């Protein structure tokens, strides 16, 4: 049976006196007016960063990996740190759109579109790092299994690095399909309101000729549900497999079975933080505070404090196991290389602890969760912390290996290594600015679907329904159609 009303205990998902047309107007306004000066400034900065990244990569491709300060001991540094960081960020979108769809969480509708877009852009950024770390990037297609003229020579299907290739490319493809199939009806809305020939033409092509037919909606619903069902294990598998890159090795500090759940929790944690950073700006700049409400921010902060605490427990468990296993190498990695503040990279461990475990605890307070400025600040802190986490895992495990003669503490990134990272920021924000300019940042059709059940001005109508005994409600509503 469909319960047709939302409880009064829940906050409205849409504020203000709205009807369907008003929803269309509000959400599509930003893409139908000329962009503001702020948009141009932001876009210019993003493109500049992107170009610097392209130049950094040009150096790396022409002169080789030696342009980066990686060495024989610390063979993975900023590149893989950044890869894992971006992939982690790319988890929130699918989590919000898929997992929350399966759990029938109505609040996902306000934030899912932008979060999914963010996911796609983040995965695009992530993919750059392992591809360019290969060195001879023009041979990158060797990672795909295909019959070739090099004798029977295939990729190693038993290798976690190849699992990564499949996981990331599948994740990117499925997220893209999920996002775009959800966009079709909204692009059709833009098309039907288009005021220039060019807009009619382009949005007409982009909307694939969507009409809004009932049969199409029925299939669309089925498609979304099944894609959500597929994406949910997929999103968990992706970061699990990323963690296998480390966990299946025999490096102290990497060789732990706790990695998959710990990485997934961390990914959700950083992904939600990035969604917060972006949406807090978007809702203000585009005047969408009625749709992306304080309630949404509150709920996402709850996810942040939960996943942050899970990550914290994982850190402590690792420390405990470092001692309890009585393995010298494990103990050395966890208690000296990481947890000892005055070891060469001890600062990064405590930076991580402060950002990821301690500071998010302020979100136990409702007042803090609902404070936009605190949330924005914390979302940045969390992402810095999660960057540190990956740096800690990678570098502190590598810099002192089993052979003391190859120990290295002299790893700091070169300008081209930093430039590559900045370049992915450029790519991410260039894409996001274009997305915000040309696509509806909120799923218009889905907001309309929840409007009459959870909109502020419609909620009072349900008070009388709620007063009814359940039997009567079921009798009246279960077979209403």
């Amino acid at each position, binding site marked *: 049976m*469909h319960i047709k009303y939302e409880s009064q205990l829940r906050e409205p998902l849409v504020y203000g006196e709205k*009807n*369907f*047309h008003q929803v*269309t107007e509000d959400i599509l306004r930003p893409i139908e007016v000329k962009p503001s000066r702020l948009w141009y400034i932001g876009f210019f900065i993003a493109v500049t960063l992107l170009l610097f990244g392209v130049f950094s990569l040009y150096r790396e491709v022409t002169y080789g990996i030696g342009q980066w300060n990686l060495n024989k001991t610390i063979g993975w540094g900023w590149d893989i740190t950044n890869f894992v960081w971006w992939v982690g960020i790319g988890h929130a979108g699918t989590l919000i759109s898929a997992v929350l769809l399966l759990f029938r969480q109505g609040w996902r509708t306000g934030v899912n579109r932008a979060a999914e877009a963010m996911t796609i852009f983040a995965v695009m950024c992530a993919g750059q790092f392992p591809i360019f770390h290969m060195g001879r990037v023009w041979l990158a297609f060797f990672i795909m*299994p295909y019959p070739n003229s090099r004798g*029977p020579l295939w990729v190693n*299907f*038993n290798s*976690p690095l*190849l*699992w990564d290739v*499949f*996981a990331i490319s*599948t994740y990117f*493809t*499925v997220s893209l*399909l*999920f996002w775009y*199939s959800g966009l079709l*009806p909204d692009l059709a*809305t833009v*098309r*039907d309101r288009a005021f220039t*020939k060019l807009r*009619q*033409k382009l*949005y*007409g*092509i*982009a909307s*694939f*000729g*969507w*009409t*809004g*037919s*009932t*049969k*199409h*909606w*029925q*299939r*669309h*619903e*089925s*498609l979304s549900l*099944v*894609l959500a069902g*597929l*994406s949910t*294990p997929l999103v968990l*598998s992706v970061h699990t*497999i990323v963690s296998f890159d480390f966990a299946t090795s025999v490096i102290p500090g990497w060789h732990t079975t706790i990695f998959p759940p710990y990485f997934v929790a961390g990914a959700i944690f950083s992904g939600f933080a990035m969604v917060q950073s972006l949406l807090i700006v978007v809702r203000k700049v585009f005047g969408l505070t009625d749709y992306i409400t304080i309630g949404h921010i509150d709920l996402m902060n709850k996810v942040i404090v939960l996943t942050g605490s899970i990550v914290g427990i994982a850190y402590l468990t690792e420390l405990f196991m470092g001692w309890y296993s009585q393995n010298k190498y494990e103990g050395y990695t966890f208690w000296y290389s990481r947890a000892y503040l005055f070891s060469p990279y001890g600062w990064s461990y405590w930076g991580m602890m402060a950002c990821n475990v301690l500071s998010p605890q302020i979100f136990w307070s409702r007042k803090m969760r609902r404070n936009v400025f605190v949330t924005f600040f914390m979302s940045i802190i969390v992402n810095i912390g999660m960057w540190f986490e990956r740096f800690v895992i990678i570098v502190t495990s590598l810099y002192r290996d089993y052979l003391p003669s190859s120990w290295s503490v002299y790893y700091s990134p070169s300008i081209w290594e930093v430039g590559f990272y900045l370049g992915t920021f450029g790519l991410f924000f260039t894409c996001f600015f274009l997305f915000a300019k040309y696509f509806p940042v909120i799923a218009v*059709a*889905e907001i*309309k679907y929840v409007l*009459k059940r959870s909109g502020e001005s419609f909620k009072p109508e349900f008070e009388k329904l709620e007063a009814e005994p359940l039997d009567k409600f079921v009798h009246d509503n279960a077979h*209403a*159609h």
Partner: protein
Amino acid sequence: MAQKKFVVGCFDEEKVLFPAVKQVRTAGYKIKDVYTPFAVHGLDHALGMRETSLHTAGFIYGITGTATAVSAISWIFTKDWPLNIGGKPHFALPAWIPIIFELTVLFAAVGMVMTFCWLCQLAPGVKKHHFHKRATDDLFVMVIECSDKTNTDDLVAFLKSNGAIETDVQVAEEEWWFGTYDKQDDLYNTKQVAL
């Protein structure tokens, strides 16, 4: 391709739409479709549509992916390129599970989206007749197919009495064609159907 005559009734409330659908169907009219700005749950049942089998197609694509991964990897690692890795078995199923899973999901998702586009005739460059611009904004647009015997005036009045806020009679192409939305396509210069 065929051009037909349709009577269009627009509704702005779900509460009015559902009884209207029932009335129109009971009266024996053939509803071609109801175009809505969002998924109206239960409308498919009210229109007497059967459930979609898209998820079944998804399942079939999924197991195709599983089978592809298992057969390809096992052929490669046991027949074409059997590597001796420390004497471990060539048929190393547990290590293949991640890729098998990923390909299952990939095949299911890509296959379903392509099937969805195929069934709904959605593709870049596809154009269809739209009965009302506001069908993607705030109106529920009911389109009734006319036969030779249909009295359009009666039908329009009937729709109005059932709460349609706007009505219209249109002659339109019911299939899709290639075109862009900035141009008025003159599909039938020669054989116009009289209103």
